[in-house]
C-alpha cells in the first residue's frame, strides 16, 4: 500500500506537451502510473505518449475521470494552473515548478486548505510509490534509491533524498511512498500534514524524515509526535548544522532568522519527542534497524 498515489490513481498532466511534461509523462507511464489525460491550452486533439490532450482541466477531468494532477508549468503560471485544477474538482495536486512567487504560494495554500485539496510542492520532485506509480520527476529505475518497501519518506530536498534514501535501501529497507514537500518557504503541504497519511497507512511501518535548516516544519513533526498524533517510529536526518546564521543556503526555505530554524534546534526538538536523528547519512540504516527490530 501507499499514501497519496498508487497504481489505481488516475493522473492528469498539466503542461503535457512541453519538453519536461512529455519526457516525464513517458517515465510516469513507464513505472505503471495510470496517466489518463493531458492539458495544454490550445493543443486539444494532440496525443502525447498515447495520452489525449485537452484545452482545459475541466474538460480533461470530466472526460477522463482523472482524480489527481501533476503540473509541468513555469513558476509564473503555477498559481493559475493549480486554481484551474481545484476548480475542476481535483484534490491531489503536485507542483514541480521551482521559483513560484511567495504571494502566489500563499494564495495556493490558502485556497487548497479552503477546499480540502492537498497540494504538494512547488520546487519538488513530487510523490512516488516505488513499484507502482509516481507524479513528478523521479528516476525510478535507480533501484538503489527507489525500491519498494515499508518505510515512508518525507523530504524537502532532491539530491539529498537520493543520498540518504540510498543508505536506507543499502540497509535492507524499502520505501512505501516518498513525498517531496519541496524546498520553498511556503510549500503547499507541510511535513506535519503528510504525517497522518503515513500514520494511517497499514503498509508503512516507520517514517524517514529528511529535513534541513530553516522554517519550522521539522518542529511541527516533533510536536505531532509529542502529542501522540504520530505514534510510529520516526528516524530523521537534518542538514545544515554548520550553516552560518542569516545566509540563504540554497533553498529559499533554508535560512536561519532571529535564531529560529537552526538544524540543531530541529534535532533537539525531534530527539525530545522520541525520534532518532542520524548525524550522518551512513547512520540512517542502523537507526532503522534498531527501531524496527
Amino acid at each position, binding site marked *: 500500500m501507499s499514501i497519496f498515489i498508487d497504481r489505481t490513481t488516475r493522473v492528469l498532466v498539466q503542461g503535457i506537451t512541453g519538453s519536461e511534461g512529455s519526457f516525464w509523462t513517458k517515465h510516469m507511464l513507464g513505472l505503471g502510473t495510470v496517466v489518463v489525460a493531458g492539458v495544454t491550452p490550445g493543443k486539444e486533439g494532440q496525443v502525447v505518449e498515447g495520452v489525449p490532450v485537452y484545452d482545459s482541466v475541466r474538460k480533461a477531468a470530466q472526460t477522463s475521470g482523472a482524480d489527481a494532477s501533476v503540473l509541468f508549468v513555469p513558476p509564473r503560471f503555477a498559481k493559475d494552473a493549480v486554481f484551474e485544477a481545484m476548480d475542476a474538482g481535483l484534490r491531489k495536486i503536485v507542483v514541480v515548478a521551482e521559483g513560484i512567487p511567495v504571494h502566489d504560494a500563499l494564495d495556493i495554500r490558502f485556497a487548497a486548505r479552503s477546499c480540502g485539496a492537498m497540494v504538494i510542492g512547488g520546487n519538488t520532485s513530487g510523490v512516488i510509490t516505488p513499484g507502482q506509480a509516481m507524479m513528478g520527476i523521479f528516476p525510478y529505475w535507480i533501484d538503489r534509491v527507489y525500491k519498494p518497501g515499508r518505510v515512508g519518506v518525507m523530504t524537502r530536498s*532532491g539530491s*539529498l533524498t537520493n*543520498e540518504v534514501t540510498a543508505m536506507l535501501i543499502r540497509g535492507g529497507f524499502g520505501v512505501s511512498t516518498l513525498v517531496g514537500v519541496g524546498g520553498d518557504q511556503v*510549500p503547499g503541504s507541510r511535513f506535519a500534514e503528510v504525517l497522518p497519511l503515513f500514520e494511517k497507512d497499514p503498509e508503512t511501518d516507520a517514517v524517514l524524515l529528511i529535513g534541513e535548516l530553516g522554517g519550522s516544519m521539522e518542529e511541527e513533526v516533533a510536536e505531532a509526535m509529542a502529542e501522540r498524533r504520530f505514534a510510529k517510529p520516526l528516524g530523521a536526518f537534518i542538514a545544515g548544522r554548520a*550553516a552560518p546564521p542569516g545566509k540563504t543556503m540554497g533553498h529559499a526555505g*533554508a535560512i536561519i532568522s532571529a535564531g529560529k530554524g537552526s538544524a540543531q534546534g530541529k534535532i533537539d526538538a525531534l530527539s525530545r519527542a522520541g525520534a532518532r536523528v542520524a548525524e*550522518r547519512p551512513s547512520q540512517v540504516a542502523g537507526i532503522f534497524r534498531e527501531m524496527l527490530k
Partner: protein
Amino acid sequence: MKLYEYQGKELLAQAGIPTPAAKLISSPDELDVAIAVVGLPCVLKAQLLSGGRGKAGLIQVADTKDDARRKAKRIFAAPQKVKKLLVEQKLEIARELYLCVTLDPVSSTAIVMASTRGGVDIEEVAAKSPEKIVREPVSVAHGLMPFNLRNLIAPLGLEKETAKAVSRIAEQLYGLWRKQDAVLAEINPLAVTKSGQVIAADAKVVIDDHALFRQPFEHVAEEYGNAVEFEAAQEGIPYLQFDGDIGLMCAGAGLTNTVFDLIHDYGGRPANFLEFGGPNYRKALQAMQLTLKSNAKVILIVTFGTIARADVMAEGIAEAIKALKPTIPIVTAIRGTNEEAAAEILRGIGLEPLMDTEEAVKKAVALAKGGAQ
C-alpha cells in the same frame, strides 16, 4: 531582495503613507540643493543595505550647512563605501511606534504587527516582552478587513487621532506588501511627532526574489558579500564565500548543506558554498571558475543527480579541467543517473572517482591539511 531605505520610502509615499521631506544625493556637492528642499536641521542617512548604520556613525543630524557638509564628507569617505546619501527633514519625534507586514507559512496568512515600543530595541522587545507586539493574522484571500484593523489598533491604547492615522497607514502598508510582492514591509520607527503627525521615519522592504519578473527592481552588487558572490548570482549559481580551504562544488541545496556539515565534522573548513544542481548542472565550467576564486587548496565535487545526469556533470568537469587547468587536487563523488559512464569519464582524465560522500569528504579534508593525495 532587500531595498534601500530611500526605495522603501518611495514605495510608502506611493501608497499614501506620510514620509519626511527628503532628497537623495550622491556627492556632498549636491547638499545645498537638498537642504533647500528639506530645510535645517536635517538628517544625513547613508544608504546601505546592512543594519547598524546609526551605531557605525552613518546617520548624522546637522544643524547648519557647514555642519552638514562636514558630516556628509565624512560619511562618503567611510570604509563602507557609501554611494548614496538620503538628506531628510529632521522630525520632532514624541514617540516611536512599530508597524510591519510579513507572512506566516504555516497558516498561509499575512501577519500584521504593531507595537507602541518601536525604535532600535524592537528585537529585544520581541524576545523579552512579546506581549507588547500585537500580531494580527490576515487572510490573503479577503485582505485586511475593518475587524483586523480594530484587533490590531485597539490594544495599543493610542489616543483617537493617532489611532486613526496608524490604522490608515496599516491598511496602506498591507496594500503595498501585497502589490509589490514584498515578504516584509516594515516601518520602524513609525514616528508620532510633537505636532501629532504620524510619519514613517524609516522603511525596510524586502521583495520576493521569485517575483522580480513582475516587479521593477534589479539586484545590486551590495546585496552580496563580495564581487565573486555577485558574479555567481549573475550566473544564477547559489554561491557564498568562506575563509576555509576546501572548495565545494555540489548539486542540490540539501546535499550541499550536508557536505558542508560533514566537512566541519571531520575537522575541515569550507572555502565556499556552491550549488550547481538543477537548472545549473551544465555549468561545471562556471562553477569551477568561481571555486578557483576562493582560497581552495582542494576541490570537492559531490553530486547525486537524477535529471542532472552524472555523465553530463562528469563531462562538464572534464571540460572545465581542460580549460582551467587547476593546480589543486580534485576529489569527486558523482552519483546518480548514468554514474558508471561518469566514473569512466573521470578515470579517463586521471581522477580516482569515489562513490561515497563521507569517504570523499575525509579525503578532501586530508588533502587540504597537506596529506598524501
